[in-house]
């Protein structure tokens, strides 16, 4: 556990140093947020509620999508793939902790910086300019925190599994990239899932993607209450465990065929 903490801390500090990139990223996130709000507001035109999402909710939705881009690594995460291709993995496998835990620790540090420097700051930024709504009571804040935490775990276990493609192909980037593109669509990043036709939603909920961003949005906006909320959070946990086990299984096969060239 100490080692886990230490790796997470180091990655936290490493990511903390890219301050200029953070500010530039903020401006871009904010600009795109403005454009996307415009499109959604134009769609609503004079309707006030569609599928339970009110016009004011749209601001919260767009703010959240922009806030979690780096936290959930929506635009892609290839670190593990690169370490396989460069051969760094050789040293990583020798570390006195499981390969999965090692990456979980590294990603925890990265995600914590992303959540604080990008996520929280973007939400504050947006709340200064747009009429955002907030969770109304302490319980909802706590459920939100839980959903945000679990969404990272679902995202990480999925990214870990996807990156293992690097063991089989030197062109894994295309395969992994494709996985992320499906993620944009099915996690509700491009449009809130509730606004899609029912059959699209049905398909989406067969995948882990809605349990990342879309669930965070629904908890934030208070669209999920009572049993539906508990069930959703439980499903997040189930996906995390399921993907982690699958990842372990694939990893075992992968390591067996791994050949590292000396030099």
């Amino acid at each position, binding site marked *: 556990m100490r080692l886990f903490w230490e790796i997470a801390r180091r990655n936290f500090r490493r990511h903390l140093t890219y301050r*200029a*990139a953070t*500010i*530039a*990223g903020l*401006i*871009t996130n904010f*600009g*795109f947020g*403005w*454009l996307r709000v*415009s*499109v959604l*507001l*134009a*769609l*609503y*035109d004079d*309707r006030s509620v*569609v599928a339970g999402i009110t016009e004011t909710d749209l601001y919260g939705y767009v703010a959240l999508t922009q806030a979690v881009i780096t936290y959930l690594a929506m635009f892609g995460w290839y670190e593990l793939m690169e370490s396989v291709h460069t051969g760094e993995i050789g040293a990583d496998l020798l570390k006195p902790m499981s390969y999965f835990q090692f990456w979980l620790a590294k990603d925890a540090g990265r995600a914590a910086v992303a959540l604080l420097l990008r996520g929280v700051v973007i939400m504050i930024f947006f709340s200064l300019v747009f009429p955002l709504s907030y969770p109304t009571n302490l319980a909802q804040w706590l459920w939100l925190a839980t959903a945000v935490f679990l969404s990272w775990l679902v995202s990480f276990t999925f990214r870990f599994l996807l990156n293992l493609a690097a063991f089989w192909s030197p*062109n894994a980037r*295309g*395969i992994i*990239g*494709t996985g992320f*593109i*499906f993620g*944009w*669509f099915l996690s509700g990043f*491009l*449009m809130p899932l509730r*606004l*899609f*036709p029912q059959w*699209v939603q049905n398909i989406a909920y067969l995948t882990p993607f809605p349990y990342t961003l879309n669930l965070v949005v629904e908890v934030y906006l208070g669209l999920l209450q009572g049993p539906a909320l508990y069930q959703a959070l439980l499903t997040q946990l189930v996906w995390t465990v399921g993907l982690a086990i699958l990842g372990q299984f694939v990893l075992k096969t992968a390591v067996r065929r791994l050949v590292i060239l000396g030099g």
Partner: protein
Amino acid sequence: MRHAFDIYRRLVGVQIRSQMQYRASFLLDLVATALTVVVEFGSVALVIQRFGDLQGWQLPEIAFLYGLVEIAFNFMDMLFSGFDPPRFGLTVRQGTFDQLLLRPINITAQVMGSRLVLRRLGRVAFGIAIFAYALSLNDITWTVAKLLYLPVVIASLIAFFGGLFVIGGTITFWTVDSIEVLNMLTYGGSFTMSYPMTIYPNWLRRFFTYIVPAVFLNFYPALYFLDKPDPFDFPAFAPFVAPLVGFAMLWLSLKVWRFGIQHYQSTGS
């Protein structure tokens, strides 16, 4: 000038040959890139279907704007990959740009020819598909003037976006770090132009009318092709200034580029 063009042709030839070397990998990349367009436009289309229209614009009309931008932007993105700000910024930082400067060959031709990302054609292809969908479902009354003007509009858009890329690339001479902001200009610009200008807040629309006059490149031409009334009461020639704006942007960007090169100071490491 002829010499420069010859150099450019050779450099691009090398790029194409090397990218076609790994056929399977290239095809996979092509599909992955094309998938981005399918997913992005697909999600917009599904939601517009549900709502019926976007402030009076039907889905096929939106597809007209969207397809046009998708075709032009990605074709430009392929041609001008050498100037792509994040990439070009990297060559400046790593000093590879200095190597190019040392060669007694036209520098613009070298940068243009240094990178040509063929897989962008996957996106262009889907842009064409979206545009074809728009053409088949919109009831356009075709005239000779419209037929002749369509390729001009596409060329103007390519020139316009190309100008943005060149300016963005030049800025990286001075700002080594904050390149992500430039995405607002390029990707933000193309995103904005994929939808009718009427949906944006006034300040944003003024920005895209008077400072970066993107509104004349596809919104006004679209009004002309689709015979829609002008919501802003501009003079009747507004749909026809696209080539003027597009190529003025490219010309201006080349001036900025020249200025940048003259004042370029290497990191010297």
